């Protein structure tokens, strides 16, 4: 392989030198100068250098061979100036292929293939035109007139069938218009179209290359227009350098692209160093940097859940490989680990993606563990909220059943008894009267007990009147002065219940342990939160840990996605603070 490439390089140098000689020997000034002859050769060599490097580094990519071919085609073009009839005929025929190969390279970058149908059609047309017109000219060129861009000496076409100076002139004009005008226009449009359609990452890769292509194509376009005009020589010279720049810029851009890939490898090296200090949350950013793809997404496969999650443990849809986004699967010990969802241009750099994946594998295993824990935590959180809500709902239901069922019935029953007692009138048997009296009294005691039970399960006032009256009622039952400031709004039942129980438990603690002489309850809405605050002036020293009721409160508040805090330094009272999210 290397030998073939070395031979090609050698051949390129030799052919280049010959091409230089052909120009200098056959074209008098001002048609060419030694500098300009040198420049055309150097421009062709730039394709050779870039093509050989690309070939060496990406043997399976056709871009390298294409560029080497472009070099030889561009050099071959110069041999048509030879006065030898055979050389003239052969190289005049293929002399235009270099420019078509140029567009081919531009359109095939970076994959080496032209897949788009429109682009393929364009190339077929371009190759056909660039061969058909020179052939037609050779068939009719009878050496009576000077050829365009040639020196005044006439050449002999070995393919001459019927000579016609007029036809040759017409064909040359037509070719100038079609090849340099129309085809160049189409090429520019195709290039712009590619750029517009490209993903942001691809655009960055394409930008220098497309700029070069557009410069070259605009030169061709101008050249095509000037075919129909008498051109002042100065302008032709300027156009010459323009052409050289346009030609050389393409391989330069490609070399820059290759260099970028080398830079990317440096990134991989940095990645390995950085990963040590990278938290699972930042892993994506590091990978995005290493792959030079800001749109990169990382999804972790969780076998137990049978689905993908992001770094935070939120489940994400199954990533699908497609034209918009490419998916690279990463395995660990033969098991699916994660997928990288990235820009499709990275498909052309599989080595880079592989290197990054290999470097990041351990960090990815780690990050997946992290994501898995987050995901489980979220599920536990959700189930905890459901359990608390269900328990609250159940308490409300029991209270309601007691209220609407047993309590109502007992009152009605006791009323019947009392009414029966009255109906007996004055002549009632004292024993029966006594019996009725004590039964009704017992019923009343039972009612009282039932009411207290129901209140303990879930305070009816909370359901009936909301938080403010419930807290006022709570404060009224406590044997120390308690001021109450509470929102008059009705809030979702579970929010009201949670706030109520926070106040209730905190106040119970105040009475039992604090030795306080006064306390205050606040329950106000603040920025989507219901903030419940119970403060006292007691001995302090309470904590939310341990087996205290405060721990249970913290659980309850946190189950609803809220925060719970106890501030209680010895000697300066206690402040219990609960924040419960309430969207409504």
């Amino acid at each position: 392989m290397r030998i073939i490439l070395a031979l090609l390089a050698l051949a390129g140098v030799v052919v280049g030198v010959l091409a230089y000689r052909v120009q200098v020997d056959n074209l008098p000034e001002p048609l060419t100068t030694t500098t300009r002859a040198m420049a055309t050769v150097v421009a062709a060599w730039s394709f050779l250098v870039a093509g050989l490097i690309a070939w060496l580094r990406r043997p399976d990519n056709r871009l390298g061979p294409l560029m080497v071919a472009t070099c030889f085609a561009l050099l071959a073009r110069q041999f048509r100036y030879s006065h030898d009839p055979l050389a003239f005929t052969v190289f005049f025929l293929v002399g235009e292929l270099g420019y078509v190969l140029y567009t081919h390279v531009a359109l095939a970058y970076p994959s080496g293939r032209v897949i788009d149908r429109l682009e393929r059609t364009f190339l077929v047309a371009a190759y056909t035109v660039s061969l058909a017109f020179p052939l037609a000219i050779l068939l009719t060129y009878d050496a009576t007139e000077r050829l365009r861009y040639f020196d005044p000496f006439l050449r002999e076409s070995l393919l001459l069938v019927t000579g016609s100076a007029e036809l040759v002139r017409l064909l040359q004009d037509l070719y100038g218009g079609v090849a340099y005008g129309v085809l160049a226009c189409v090429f520019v449009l195709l290039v712009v179209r590619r750029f517009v359609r490209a993903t942001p990452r691809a655009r960055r890769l394409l930008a220098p290359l497309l700029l070069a292509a557009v410069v070259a194509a605009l030169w061709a376009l101008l050249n095509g227009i000037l075919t129909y005009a008498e051109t002042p020589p100065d302008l032709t010279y300027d156009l010459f350098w323009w052409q050289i720049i346009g030609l050389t810029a393409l391989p330069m851009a490609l070399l820059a692209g290759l260099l970028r890939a080398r830079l990317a490898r440096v990134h991989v090296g940095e990645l390995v160093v950085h990963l040590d200090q990278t938290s699972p949350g930042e892993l994506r950013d590091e990978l995005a940097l290493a792959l030079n793809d800001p749109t990169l997404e990382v999804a972790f496969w969780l076998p137990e859940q049978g689905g993908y999650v992001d770094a935070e443990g939120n489940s994400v849809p199954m990533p699908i490989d497609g034209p918009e986004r490419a998916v690279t699967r990463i395995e660990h010990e033969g098991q699916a680990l994660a997928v990288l969802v990235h820009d499709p241009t990275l498909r052309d750099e599989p080595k880079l993606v592989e290197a990054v994946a290999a470097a990041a594998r351990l960090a990815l295993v780690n990050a997946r563990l992290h994501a898995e824990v987050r995901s489980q935590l979220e599920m536990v959180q959700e189930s905890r909220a459901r359990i608390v809500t269900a328990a609250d709902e159940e308490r409300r239901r029991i209270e309601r059943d007691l209220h609407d069922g047993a309590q109502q019935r007992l009152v009605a029953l006791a009323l019947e008894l009392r009414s029966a007692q009255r109906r007996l009138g004055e002549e009632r048997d004292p024993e029966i009267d006594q019996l009725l009296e004590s039964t009704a009294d017992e019923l009343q005691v039972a009612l009282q007990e039932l009411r207290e039970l129901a209140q303990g399960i879930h305070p009816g006032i909370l359901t009936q009147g909301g938080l403010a009256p419930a807290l006022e009622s709570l404060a009224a039952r406590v044997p120390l002065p308690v001021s109450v400031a509470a929102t008059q709004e009705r809030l979702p039942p579970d929010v009201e219940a949670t706030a109520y129980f926070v106040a209730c438990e905190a106040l119970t603690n105040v009475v039992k342990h604090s030795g306080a002489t006064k306390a205050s309850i606040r329950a106000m809405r603040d920025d989507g939160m219901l903030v419940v605050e119970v403060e006292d002036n007691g001995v302090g020293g309470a904590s939310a840990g341990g087996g205290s009721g405060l721990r249970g409160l913290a659980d309850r508040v946190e189950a609803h996605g809220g925060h719970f805090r106890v501030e209680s330094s010895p000697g300066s009272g206690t402040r219990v603070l609960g924040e419960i999210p309430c969207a409504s």
Partner: protein
Amino acid sequence: MRVVIADDSVLLREGLARVLTEGGFEIVAQAADADELRQAVRRFKPDIAIVDVRMPPTHTDEGARAAVEIRAEQPEVAVLVLSQVVEAAHAMRLFSERPEGFGYLLKDRVLEIDDFLEAVRRVGRGGTAIDPEVIGQLVGRRREDSPLDELTPREREVLELMAQGLSNRGICEKLVVSPKTVETHVNSIFGKLGLMPTGDEHRRVLAVLAYLRS
């Protein structure tokens, strides 16, 4: 006196109706929920509506809300609210500075038939009946340096009866003392609490309740 009863329990409604009828009241309609109550009150214009706080469909406070509406729309209709749970805060909210023709009693109070009939009569005539437990909550609430602490136990009793809406005569009967004694107690209480004496009973209830709430 014409009465509308609203309670979702048929058993209780019937029991109440019988007791009230025997007590000399005329039951013009019975309602099982808040809508029926509103219609019945509009149609029959009773002297008093006896309303259960919790009724279908949500069993939360539709009775109480209907009571507030009736008092706003038809002030001439007295309302007696019955509840399985009585709360001072809730009571205050319901009568909203207008104790005339308003009652708020624990449901169990219907079992003390004579007292209950008396309360219905009082409210129906434009008086007030606040449940002793509510007053107990208000009086029992601890305050810092409250003049209530200076009241004698007897005065405290009289204060609570006043707050419940009883007139001097009612208090006499309840405590079995002479009108003169009651008057002495009342004056002493007003003096200690720094309230202006007033002959009007509604204003007296309001003043006492306002004081207890503060």
